[in-house]
């Protein structure tokens, strides 16, 4: 193994390769900030160039730089303007945006960068050590297990079900599930619930919905209530750029990073689960493990709530390389595109890769370490400047946020109907906010809904009954975990309330 790492290192540590990873990171970070252009499309765009570099290791290192850069760029727009461009950074915005709104944008970006780095690096270490056995583990997952995993992921909505709001949060997640059934799915031939609108046949676009629910209402709220933001923003220029994480915060996020890099990685190893599920499950688990006081902070600017999904989604992205490298199966859209790049370079991923092309196998792994390090080194000094974007005068910031949101759905689709849909949904979202309905559960339901139905449908076709829910141990285990995710916080809240009630009773 060490020998292999050395082979990879020798190939990677040329001046050209390092220059390429730096360039890749920079391009990835800046293009990744534009909503609508996620890692997948950026890599697709960069492949012809990477392939033209000739040497497979250098190409892969360059693409790894682009990839990690794009993932970080996506987190940046989630944190700064509540505009997650890809599903895997949705959970990042849950606590990242409230932190930025409280004037701590620099800190939030730093936590994101450090968590990404740690998740990616620990993931790479796990990949280095256990790629083989993990591939076997991935093979134990059937649709039944994926279904149970989605159910566990849905419990992340608990974070948005404040007291007296449980039913509202459930209602919102159901709305998300219903929205997810619109259009053509993977199971059935016919497009459903299109109401005769041809443009709905491909469903409601992810970017359309997320911008309508998150970015647009935020920007429009600043139009509605200009005083509100002003009070928050004033006199905080210094803090916005401040990167420092306190010892207290470091102590809080260290165990989160430790746990979520492992859990996230394992989820990423499953072909078809991926970074988004990992980020939601990471968010849900950390909320459950937190003390009741800390739990209250989730969704309002918790450093744990920011670190958990950022660590998990990066670890999962790394994990998704396991099935690609060892089985030759692309586990995610991004690895499918990278698989294409490998084949273009004359390399065939699969069980024989490590024997036949060890320099490629180890080159890929080294490129992960290198990509993560370069990203951290490159972006930490940039964070104060990126965070300063928030100090741009309102008269420019708001129109630009609206414009970027609209462009996110329009770029690469040229479909104006998506824009009308987005504007209409933004009006609905604003109304829901006034009525105290939490919006994140809609997007959680929307993202997980498709996979929930697909995996349930496949399992029912395969087994023809529901016995698999308790007959398959892993499925049963995951479903029990999901139930615990819901019950444990409820029980501890109830105990806390009982305790408080007693105190007040005695106090009176």
């Amino acid at each position, binding site marked *: 193994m060490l020998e292999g790492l050395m082979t990879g290192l020798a190939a990677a540590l040329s001046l050209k390769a390092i220059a390429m990873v730096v360039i890749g990171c920079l391009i990835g970070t800046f293009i990744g900030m534009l909503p609508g252009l996620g890692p997948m499309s950026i890599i697709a765009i960069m492949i012809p160039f990477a392939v033209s570099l000739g040497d497979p290791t250098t190409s892969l290192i360059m693409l790894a730089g682009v990839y990690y850069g794009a993932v970080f760029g996506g987190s940046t727009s989630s944190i700064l303007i509540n505009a997650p461009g890809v599903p895997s950074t949705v959970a990042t915005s849950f606590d990242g945006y409230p932190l930025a709104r409280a004037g701590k944008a620099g800190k939030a970006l730093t936590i994101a960068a450090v968590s990404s780095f740690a998740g990616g690096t620990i993931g790479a270490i796990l990949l280095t050590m256990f790629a083989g056995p993990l591939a076997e583990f991935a093979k134990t997952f059937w649709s039944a297990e994926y279904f149970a995993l989605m159910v566990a992921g849905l419990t992340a909505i608990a974070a948005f079900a404040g007291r007296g709001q449980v039913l509202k949060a459930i209602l919102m997640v159901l709305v998300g599930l219903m929205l997810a059934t619109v259009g053509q799915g993977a199971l059935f031939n016919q497009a459903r619930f299109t109401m005769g609108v041809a443009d709905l046949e491909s469903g409601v676009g992810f970017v359309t919905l997320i911008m309508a629910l998150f970015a647009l209402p935020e920007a429009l709220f600043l139009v509605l209530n200009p005083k509100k933001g002003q009070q928050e923003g004033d006199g905080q220029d210094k803090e916005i750029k401040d990167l420092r994480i306190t010892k207290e915060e470091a102590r809080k996020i260290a165990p989160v990073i430790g746990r979520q890099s492992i859990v996230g990685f394992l989820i990423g190893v499953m072909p078809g689960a991926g970074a988004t599920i990992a980020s939601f499950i990471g968010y849900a688990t950390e909320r459950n493990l937190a003390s009741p006081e800390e739990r209250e902070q989730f969704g309002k600017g918790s450093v744990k709530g920011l670190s958990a999904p950022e660590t998990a989604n990066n670890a999962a992205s790394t994990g998704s390389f396991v099935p690609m490298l060892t089985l030759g199966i692309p586990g995610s859209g991004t690895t499918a595109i990278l698989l294409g790049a490998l084949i273009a370079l004359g390399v065939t991923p699969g069980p024989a890769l490590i024997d036949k092309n060890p320099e490629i196998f180890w080159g890929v792994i080294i490129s992960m370490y290198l990509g993560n390090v370069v990203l951290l080194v490159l972006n930490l000094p940039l964070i104060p400047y990126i965070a300063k974007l928030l100090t741009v005068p309102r008269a420019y910031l708001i129109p630009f946020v609206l414009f970027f949101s609209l462009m996110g759905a329009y770029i690469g689709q040229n479909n*104006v109907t998506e824009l009308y849909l987005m504007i209409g949904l933004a009006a609905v979202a604003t109304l829901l906010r006034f009525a105290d309905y939490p919006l994140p559960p809609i997007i959680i339901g929307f993202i997980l809904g498709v996979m929930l139905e697909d995996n*349930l449908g496949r399992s029912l076709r395969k087994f023809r009954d529901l016995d698999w829910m308790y007959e398959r141990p892993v499925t049963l285990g995951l479903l029990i975990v999901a139930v615990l995710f819901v019950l444990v916080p409820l029980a501890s809240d109830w105990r806390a309330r009982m305790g408080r009630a007693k105190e007040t009773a005695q106090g009176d």
Partner: protein
Amino acid sequence: MSSRWFTLDRLIALVILIIALAYINASFNIRMLPFELRQPFKPNTYPLAIGTLTAIIAFFVTVMPPAAADPTIAKSGGDTEGWREFDWLRFAIFFVLMIVYATFLRAGGFIPSTIIFLFLGSLVLGERRVWISLPIIAVLTVGLWYLVTQVLGIYMPAWPSGFAVPFGQSAQVFNAAAPLVMGA
């Protein structure tokens, strides 16, 4: 008390209830292919389940007793306080602006439409220094258009159709190399 009972959130829950019923109705009307009728999991199996669940929960939210006034519970959306004093006019103007922008984006070309949208937006928000705002907006718009179309190779007509094209819809002969040259 009675007027406070029928609050906005109940109204919304009622609307969701109606939508859920319409959704259930639509689920029954999904056109099924002959072979699908024999399947255990039909195109409307799952929609019927979630539609019914939605209707039940929406019903409960509509009729549930008002939450007891608990001073320890801060309203989560505290930022909606004082909504009567909000700037609803500007809010509406922005919606109109976005709709008009979406409508003319294709016919009017990306560059003119975007510049006008951003310029009017900044004007509405109080930026009166046109000699500053216009150049900034124009440079950013053209720069972004260049990045997206010329560098990334994504199609987006810059000018109204039939208009002389100063930049040219240049060929994507080697689109991926361009960002590197720029990056350097």
